[in-house]
């Protein structure tokens, strides 16, 4: 996959969509393409989070640690993104990600992302909007749960 195709790919994610095209390209160019073998761990719950991963090919299992051992919660596949919360702030990983198959990713590190966002105020505002939507979704889901329980 060439640089152009990578740019096409990341453009689809809301957090990258409003960044100027040249900056999107720069972000891809400066990011690393990482390949994982099946079974290789991408990151573990509790690790310091420093990057988001865009899946170019293959699939990933997401699991959370429980007292009884890891519990698989979902699978992520091609053209999806994982760990993007990490690039907004200093939060530890909440889940463990493992490659299910041979996996190809584009690793977008926090400092690269920050460096790009800094040059692109529009993108920063868009980012706030994305986060706000997510927050309101989470809050809504939470109150729904509370209501159901109560």
């Amino acid at each position: 996959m060439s640089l152009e195709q990578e740019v096409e790919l990341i453009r689809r994610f809301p957090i990258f969509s409003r960044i100027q095209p040249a900056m999107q390209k720069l972000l891809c160019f400066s990011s690393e393409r990482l390949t994982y073998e099946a079974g290789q761990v991408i990151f573990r719950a509790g690790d310091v989070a420093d990057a988001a991963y865009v899946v170019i090919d293959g699939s990933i299992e997401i699991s959370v640690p429980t007292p009884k051992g890891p519990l698989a919660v979902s699978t992520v596949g091609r053209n999806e993104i994982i760990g993007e919360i990490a690039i907004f702030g200093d939060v530890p990983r909440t889940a463990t990600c493992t490659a299910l198959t041979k996996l190809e990713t584009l690793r977008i590190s926090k400092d690269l992302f920050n460096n790009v966002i800094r040059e692109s105020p529009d993108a920063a505002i868009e980012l706030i909007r994305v986060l706000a939507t997510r927050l309101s979704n989470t809050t809504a889901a939470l109150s729904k749960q509370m209501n159901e329980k109560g």
Partner: protein
Amino acid sequence: MARGGVTEVERSLFRFIFKYSKREQLMIVPLVFGSMFVYFMSLDLPKTIINQAIQGKAFPEPTSTAHLLRYQFTLPDFLGGDVIRLFSGFEVERLPYLVALSLGLLFMIALNGFLKLQINTMKGWMGERMLRRLRFVLFDHILRFPLARFRRVKPAEMASMIKDEVEPLGGFIGEAVITPMFLAGEALTALFFIMYQHFLLGLVALAVIAVQAFIIPRMRRRLLALAKERQLTARQLSGRIAETVDGIVEIHTHDTSNYERAEISSRLGKIFRIRFEFYQRKFMIKFLNNFLSQVTPFIFYLMGGYLVINGRLDIGALVAVIAAYKDLPSPIKELIDWDQQRMDVQIKYNQVSEQFTVDNLAPPESQTLIEHPSLPTDGSVVASNLTLADETGNKSLDNVNFDIPLDRHVALIGPHACGSSELLQLLARLTLPTGGTLRVGGIDIGRAPEAMTGRALAYVGSTGYLFPRSVLENVTYGLNHYPVAPAVYEGSARREHEIYLKETERAANSLLDVDAHWIDYAGAGASGPAELEVKITEVLKVVELDEKIFELGLRSSVSGPLAAEIMEPVLRAREAMRERLGALGIHEWVEHFDPERYNRNATLAENLLFGTPVGKIFDVDNLGRNSYVRRVLKEIGLEDDLLRMGHKIAETMVELFSGLPPGHEFFERFSFIRLEDLPIFQEILASVVESGLQGLDEEEREQLLALPFKLVNARHRLGLVDDAFEGRILQARRYFAEHLPAEMKNGVEFFDPARFNSAASLQDNVLFGKIVSGQAEAPAKIGTLLREVLDELGLRQLIVKIGLDYQVGVGGARLATQERQKIALARALLKRPAVLVMDQSVAVLDPSAQRRIMKNILDYRPSASVYWAINREDLVDLFHHAMVMDAGRIVEIGPVAELKAKGGALSKMLAAT
């Protein structure tokens, strides 16, 4: 005296000159007198030639003969007019007489020149020797300055004083006595000669000289004041420039560059004003001087001519007088110059000597070379009524008393400015107490020579200084106390060294040989180099630097004698590493160099050269310009392809990076094009749009051609390299190697699976390929494997040794702050001091490393004294004793366990955290 002259800086320049060069100055005097006599003769001879030989006064008849070499003087009438005959001479005829006299003149001129040459050589010799002495004395003073002095004088100013400001002194010292003597002698001889020829003409000459000697020096007074000002402002300028460099970060972060510009501009303006006024006056004086000296011949022609016409002066004498006068102004002028230079230089000297005259200079005896000083072995550290006050009477230490055996570890704790730093500096004998004494094992360290304190005590501050040498030299720096074994000189080197020593002694410099073997193995508790190596490994482990040094070794390329030693094991490691990768099934994680394949994880340059560039010839930045590379590309028909690639890359780079502000870190990290070159490429791209790639001129082509060489296909994903292109690069690779001109053979060391590459790093040599990019965790995993393999082959020690040769750069800049500090710690540990004095010495390390390394260091010296100022109370439990300080006094002191139980100041501090 082995450490060199213990000369103090003399207050006056002439006292300095007479004190140290009296003998040499006197030795030149006879030469000067000889030269005067010869000079007089060379003035007198032409007269004889004209009057006697040419005009034939000595030959009234064609057959007459004259006396050659008859020396007689006719005293002037006012002295009685007697004839004094020194030598009656030989009788010769007229023509041979002329020839003989002319040859005599030639001989005199040559002899005079030769004497002048001798005098000048001796002057230069003497001057340079005195300059060497003076510089040495000044440097010696720096070594003896109290530390407080360095807060007031800037390093750049000190360096500029020793290097530049005393430089003219050397020239002057040679001239100090001889020149005025010589010039005055010359002038007097000439004057005497003129007087001797004709008294009245002599008086005229004398009058002009008197005017010159009276007016010119007066006009020069202002010049001197200007010279002094000029020197001061120039010195301040160099200090200011150094400040700018030191504060460059502040300047950038606070946007004060324009303020600094204005500042320096005003200084340069001031210097300009001073210098311009200086030149104006200087040339005015020059004009006057020239005028005065040229007006005299006018008088001579007029008066002398009148006298000759009247027959009161013969023509030979007039010619001789004019010749003599022609020589007269220049010595007078030079004398005045000399006087000017004298004052100038004296000002310089006084200024420098003022800067170097310090009241509390350490006495020379304190730094006397003692090979085996008596060192404290047991007993206690005893402080009695220790007080330290500054000039204003402010006490930073007030009546400190303690007595702690030499086998204890003591922690000093207290709030900011509690006095612990000052106490530690006293304990390291970096400063001296204003009151009280400090004894270590019974020795008063305030009076002990540095030979004792420098070995028995070791001090590490919060940021240790590294010298710009290798890691090894920095670690062993604390063992360079005295030459342990002399250097061996054979044959001509030996004779040269003897001459060097003789001259060194005359300049009262240090006679110690810097090339001798200085490392005091015994000081490190080792018997020789092998044991020292073991000790060094030990201390590196203690400060957790061993792994880093190993890594530095891996990153180094090895040539010279060590290469022979490491070559064969490295090739074995290469083999073992390949096997290991294969066994683990991760063979493809390293893409090996294969003569028959394109390596997608290597740069295009590496693929083309198939080797490591040595020096600049095939440096990746120069490849586009290298004529041989261009020839190879043309032969294979690659040049147009590369040009197109370069154009593509330039397009992408300009697109990606134009939007970034200058100085963005991405340029450094990712761009193929430097920020400052971006506009050049923008222009090139614009002209390509206009007239295509073929329309580019040679320089633009070079710029574009340089870009693809940095391309790593696997990493950069620009989609520019396909299989066909790879095949042609392989073709070019073969062509390149086959036709490489002989004079470029040294420019590249080819990759060869069976050979050691001395231009590549050890790591690259072992891997013999590139870690594939994009394989998650590959670099870490391969790093681990590499270490395993090298450990198994027993290569660690050797690689650490290579790592120790790593040059740390100016101030250790090539290492991280933490690593620098660790080297400073290792240096202090290696010399096994009786008392280790640590002032916040691990504070720059990260928190967990602080505790670990502190513990390592304390464990390394289980029953040897350590005094450690700490700023984290939780570390106190690593120590035997605690000393709680506040406002220069000891609040609480005793074993840590006791203090904790007592519920005093220490318990309160611990509870607060």
